[in-house]
């Protein structure tokens, strides 16, 4: 899926470190995307299959602002975040809200419909030819150990952004009123209504946050892997969803751990085993984890009552 530029395949310690950092960088992007999945799942109990395509839209918006209008990177990303947030809320309002009380499968298929819609919309507007994305990060990066270990600016910024966003988000969910409302809704929707929580607004807010993060993830993903097409979002979307399940779906730290692990495993598998079999290896690890711990690494075991 991704083209990973691996220049040296020696089993050196520096090589190992480089792969580890690449893996953490990719994993940070997965974690950001996985957050969108995991929060929406935790609150609305639905798999938002269109999430991967919001990433793609976000990346295209940044591309349009930067390359076509010549805006600075920060402004472009802010515009993209605002647009994606609005997009996420509109999608929720039109497609998912009417189906809130319907079966899970109906919502799932609708989400797939939305995903097709976004992809084909992008296909119509931007065409099917890949555009080459200019990195939003101009920094060359740092060089350690006498030039043996190069860390790109992309990797550093991606990892730091991810960690900052995670910390802020965890603080938000734990300490603010809307965050507490989110936790309440995810625990028991009906009880939350009785406590006077506006469930619709809370779900809308969740979609807004998830989609805003998707825009950031899109910009970061395409800075590292610069070929952008209308289908760019779908495979990272699936991988991030896997990461969310991996870490325990519904759990925010779980998304971080799942995303980072997935990214590192993917890059290591590409580097040391086989670049073609990397996806198979990632999914095999996922299956093994789920068989040992059926609710993911940080997932809670829910006992079924008779």
């Amino acid at each position, binding site marked *: 899926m991704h083209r990973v530029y691996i220049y040296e395949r020696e089993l050196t310690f520096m090589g190992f470190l480089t792969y580890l950092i690449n893996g953490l960088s990719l994993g940070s992007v997965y974690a950001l995307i996985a957050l969108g999945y995991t929060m929406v799942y935790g609150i609305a109990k639905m798999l938002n299959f269109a999430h991967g395509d919001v990433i793609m839209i976000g990346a295209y918006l940044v591309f349009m602002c930067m390359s076509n209008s010549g805006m600075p990177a920060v402004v472009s990303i802010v515009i993209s975040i605002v647009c994606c947030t609005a997009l996420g809320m509109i999608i929720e309002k039109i497609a998912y809200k009417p189906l809130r009380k319907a079966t899970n499968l109906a919502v799932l298929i609708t989400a797939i419909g*939305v995903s097709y819609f976004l992809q084909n919309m992008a296909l119509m507007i931007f065409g099917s030819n890949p555009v080459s994305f200019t990195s939003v990060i101009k920094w060359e990066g740092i060089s350690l150990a006498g030039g043996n270990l190069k860390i790109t600016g992309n990797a550093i910024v991606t990892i730091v952004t991810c960690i900052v966003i995670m910390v802020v988000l965890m603080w938000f969910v734990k300490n603010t009123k809307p965050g507490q409302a989110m936790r309440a809704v995810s625990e028991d929707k009906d009880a939350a209504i009785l406590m006077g929580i506006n469930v619709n607004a809370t779900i809308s807010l969740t979609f807004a946050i998830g989609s805003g993060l998707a825009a950031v993830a899109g910009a970061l993903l395409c800075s590292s892997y610069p070929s952008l097409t209308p289908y760019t979002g779908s495979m990272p979307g699936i991988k991030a969803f896997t990461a969310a399940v991996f870490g325990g779906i519904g759990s925010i730290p779980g998304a971080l751990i799942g995303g980072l692990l997935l990214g590192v495993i993917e890059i290591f598998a590409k580097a040391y085993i086989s670049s073609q079999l990397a996806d198979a290896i990632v999914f095999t690890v996922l299956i093994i984890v789920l068989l040992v711990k059926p609710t993911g690494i940080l997932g809670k075991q829910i006992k079924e009552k008779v």
Partner: protein
Amino acid sequence: MKILEKLKKSTQKIIGPVADTVSKYAKKVITPVVNLYKKLNKPTKKLIRTETVILALFAVVSVMESSGNLTSLMKGLLVPVCAYSLVAVGLNLCVGYLGELSLGHAGFMCVGAFTSALFSRTFQDVIPDVPRFIIALVLGTAVAALFGFLIAIPVLRLSGDYLAIVTLAFGEIIKNVINVLYVGKDSKGLHFSMKDQMSLNMDLDGMMLINGPQGITGTPRQSTFLIAVLLLMLALIVTHNFVHSRTGRAVMAIRDNQIAAETVGLPVTKYKLVAFTLSAAIAGVGGVLYAHNINSLTATTNNFGYNMSIMILVYVVLGGIGNFSGSVIAAVVLTMLPELLRGLSTYRMLIYSIVLIGLMLFNWAPGILKWREAHGLNATAIIGRFKKKEVQ
């Protein structure tokens, strides 16, 4: 006028006795058949109706094909439509009756396709056409069933969305592994490799069977529309019988309440395994049909990856969960729809997605369902209107 009446009488004289005997024999044949039909229970009647409709459609399409009224695009779609319908029927067994969401049925289709194509390609010059296709079909189905069984053992320990993601993962693994598989044949026998073509170390007379990402080329194109329709009808009968058998009832009991079923003493794991394996086997049949309809078989995201699994799931949900004929209808309509919209070029997939979202909202949204009921637009009211007309 007189001439006309004379003509009428003379023709009656000639045709009359013939028509009488024909109708006599027809009555002799038809009356018992009708009586037999009346005695059947409701689901069986429905099955027979579905099969008749499929046969009638087959006849119409065949006539259209032979009279040249079918565009080459439509002709190319006939067998794939049947293959997708088969996979949808298989998935419906899993989603509707086992109650577990599988996102990996394209993987089973893939296994069936590649096994059968590999067999057909290997023994292309050794075994004559007809028995080879039959063996390929049986082999493809059996290996898909075996994969279904092996995957089901760990997977069915999970439930809900976790089960869905693991089946998705299995589907992706199958696709991925086939993409790095190299198989060749020479005078010494078969050679396998997971690296590249060179590492097979074949003799000069060697022939590539599976060439990594290029897949299998030169599979004999033996899937005709007739075979596809027959297999689809057979699958409908098999699933119908399965669902209405003792095993099928047990599977449904487990779906509705696993703990209660366990308490009654049903061996839950066994029944789940049986249902999942059958579901995979039917998907495998679809794969065999698919493989023998195209010259070069490759495993990509669109034909055997999660995109396909999701597409099949769309057929199942739109056709009605647990309704096999619905799956077939949805598969036919939704495969034809983008092709019929081809004149709209770039807009077609956009329209397709809007139709999909609209249909889901129309069929499932509680608010819209209430509105439909208030305006007499719900399913029972519409069917009721038709029935009244029949009575009058």
